């Protein structure tokens, strides 16, 4: 019996029932209907450059291996042995030719196929046993400009259809320079929060509003009292496509400025002309501006700091943050290092800004232990400006970054997926090849 969530999410008015952040049955349904259906971010291609390179990560609570096979293709498969179920690979990253399970020694190739095991003759003598039936379960894999996504759902549309016109906006961080992007070295920065995964995801999809209050202290040392960050509904936008969302202004380096590194800002300015020539004026200004974004359901990033992170669900009230820093490959080494330190010092568990966030999400979650409390609804109603009604920008565009528009559309998509029996019931917006918009 599935739960119909229509009564819990009134996305038009922005009334959200608090039980969706608490109820274990709703969480279980999310694992099945949201996470097991969505294209989930698993790695950046730069993390597994050479054949044999691998990382392990999570797709919701399913642990997976992401490996570069000998033919250079990227394979994603469950990190759980089909023999008795043990975890196969215990390293976060590495290089090898095969993955050998610790329990009885079954060995799997870089594509997840079962290759050999101790006393193989016993299986050879077993009627009906076929090696090809017992590999590690493989996911579908597709990439967009360096970002690798996977899904175990055979019915899911292509990654291109899933991202739709959001790709046009993504290019403002993924395609600013010739040569593509990379993750800075050293693996993911990981930490645990006792919150429901949707609070950080909805924060990144469209809540710049919190920055004006939550992050006052964090931005004070670099930007002066009261942050100095300019957030207005003039010259700023929210865009949403298929539940993915990005709120931003046109400040080009507004987010980056809070890292307080003048050399870094000088470098960014020196690239503005070339980036404008590449992406057009409108998208170029998104590169490092005051902004945040989330790819549905749980893959977020911050332009300017270039922290990319997954909010991995670990239960209805527990979330693990895995974060990396993405830079253009051809950025000078010294500037990359400035971004490494800058993103770490703002958005990591020791970050001057991230340290402000966690307690909010933990207590927004924990309060729902109260029966009366969780039977209240939350207010996602802010809508000071209307939808932009012209075709110059793809997706659903709202003027002004201070609004709850993207968050309502995030919950609209969430409710659609939670209620849908099949992909037939999940509408996706048709990609329109956009004109070089809003020049």
């Amino acid at each position, binding site marked *: 019996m599935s739960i119909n969530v229509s009564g819990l999410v009134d996305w038009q008015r922005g009334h959200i029932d608090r039980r969706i952040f608490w109820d274990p049955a709703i969480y279980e349904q999310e694992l099945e209907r949201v996470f097991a259906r969505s294209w989930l971010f698993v790695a950046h291609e730069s993390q597994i450059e050479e054949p044999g390179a691998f990382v392990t990560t999570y797709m919701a609570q399913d642990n997976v291996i992401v490996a570069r096979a000998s033919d250079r293709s990227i394979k994603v498969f469950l990190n759980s042995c089909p023999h008795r179920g043990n975890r196969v690979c*215990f*390293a*976060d*990253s*590495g*290089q*090898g030719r095969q993955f050998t399970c610790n329990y009885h020694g079954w060995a799997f190739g870089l594509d997840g196929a079962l290759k050999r095991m101790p006393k193989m003759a016993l299986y050879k003598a077993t009627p009906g046993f076929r090696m090809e039936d017992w590999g590690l379960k493989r996911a579908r894999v597709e990439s967009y400009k360096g970002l690798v996504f996977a899904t175990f759902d055979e019915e899911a549309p292509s990654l291109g259809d899933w991202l739709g016109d959001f790709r046009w906006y993504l290019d403002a961080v993924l395609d600013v320079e010739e040569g593509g992007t990379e993750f*800075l*070295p*050293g*693996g993911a*920065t*990981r*930490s*645990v*929060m*006792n919150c429901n995964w949707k609070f950080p995801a909805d924060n990144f999809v469209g809540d710049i509003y919190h920055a004006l209050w*939550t992050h*006052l*202290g*964090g931005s*004070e*040392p*670099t*930007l*002066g*009292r009261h942050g100095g960050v300019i957030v207005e509904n003039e010259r700023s936008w929210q865009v949403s496509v298929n539940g993915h969302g990005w709120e931003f202004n046109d400040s080009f380096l507004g987010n980056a400025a809070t890292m*307080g590194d*003048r050399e870094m800002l000088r470098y960014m300015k020196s690239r503005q002309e070339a980036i404008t020539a590449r992406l057009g004026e409108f998208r170029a200004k998104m590169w490092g501006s005051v902004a945040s974004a989330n790819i549905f359901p749980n893959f977020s990033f911050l332009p300017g700091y270039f922290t990319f992170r997954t909010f991995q669900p670990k239960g209805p009230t527990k979330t*693990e943050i895995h974060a*990396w*820093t993405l830079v253009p490959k051809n950025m000078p080494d*010294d500037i990359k*290092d400035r971004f*490494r*330190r800058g993103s*770490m*010092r703002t958005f*990591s*568990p*020791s970050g*001057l800004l*991230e*340290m*402000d966030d*966690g*307690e909010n999400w*933990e207590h927004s979650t924990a309060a729902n232990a109260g029966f009366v409390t969780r039977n209240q609804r939350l207010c996602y109603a802010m809508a000071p400006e209307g939808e932009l009604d012209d075709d110059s920008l793809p997706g659903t565009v709202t003027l002004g970054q201070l609004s709850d528009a993207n968050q309502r559309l995030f919950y609209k998509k969430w409710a659609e997926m939670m209620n849908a029996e099949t992909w037939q019931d999940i509408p996706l917006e048709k990609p329109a090849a956009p004109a070089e918009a809003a020049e």
Partner: protein
Amino acid sequence: MSGAAASAKPDYSTYPTLDRKARRAAAAALLAMEGGGAPASAADLARIEAFYRMEARLLDEEFYDRWYDLLADDLFYWMPLRENRFRRDNRPSLSADNMAMFDETKADIAVRLGRLASNLVWTEDPPTRHVYLISNVEAFETGTTGEYEVHSAFVQYRNRSEHDEAQLVGRRRDLLRMVGDRIEVAGRLILFPQSVLLTKNLSAFF
């Protein structure tokens, strides 16, 4: 650094810092510390242990300005990320070029203290209560007179609100410098055993 000064933004670019080359060199020096030097004299070891007790108390009681004064101008303060890797993996397990939890110079610490002094950090108001325990102290002489390589272990317990607590346990490797009757922290490598930080943040000093 005081709250009163917060209305005029300090120019942190004038604070003591290290360039990348110096940070890499400092990281290499900390990584090379294996307790190979001659053990420090009993008197010096006692001085160092007393220094650590004082340092921990200054942090517990939020005397951050006084703690800041214990830091050398050429401080490198580093908590690298820990990854789970196979023993056969031949990449260096810790590198100054990798992402880290802390990768700081004295100026960077000043920015952190400026944040706390702003009185605008809601997650530290009401304040967090800390107890910082230091033990297993071993001190060794280095090639430089007055500089000591010091290994220790720590428990950084914190509690805030009602049930919000974390026990952050780890090891430190310090480069301590005796200057007259003062001791300064010139380098600190914080080896934290969790590959996934099992709490929400590292709002603490080590």
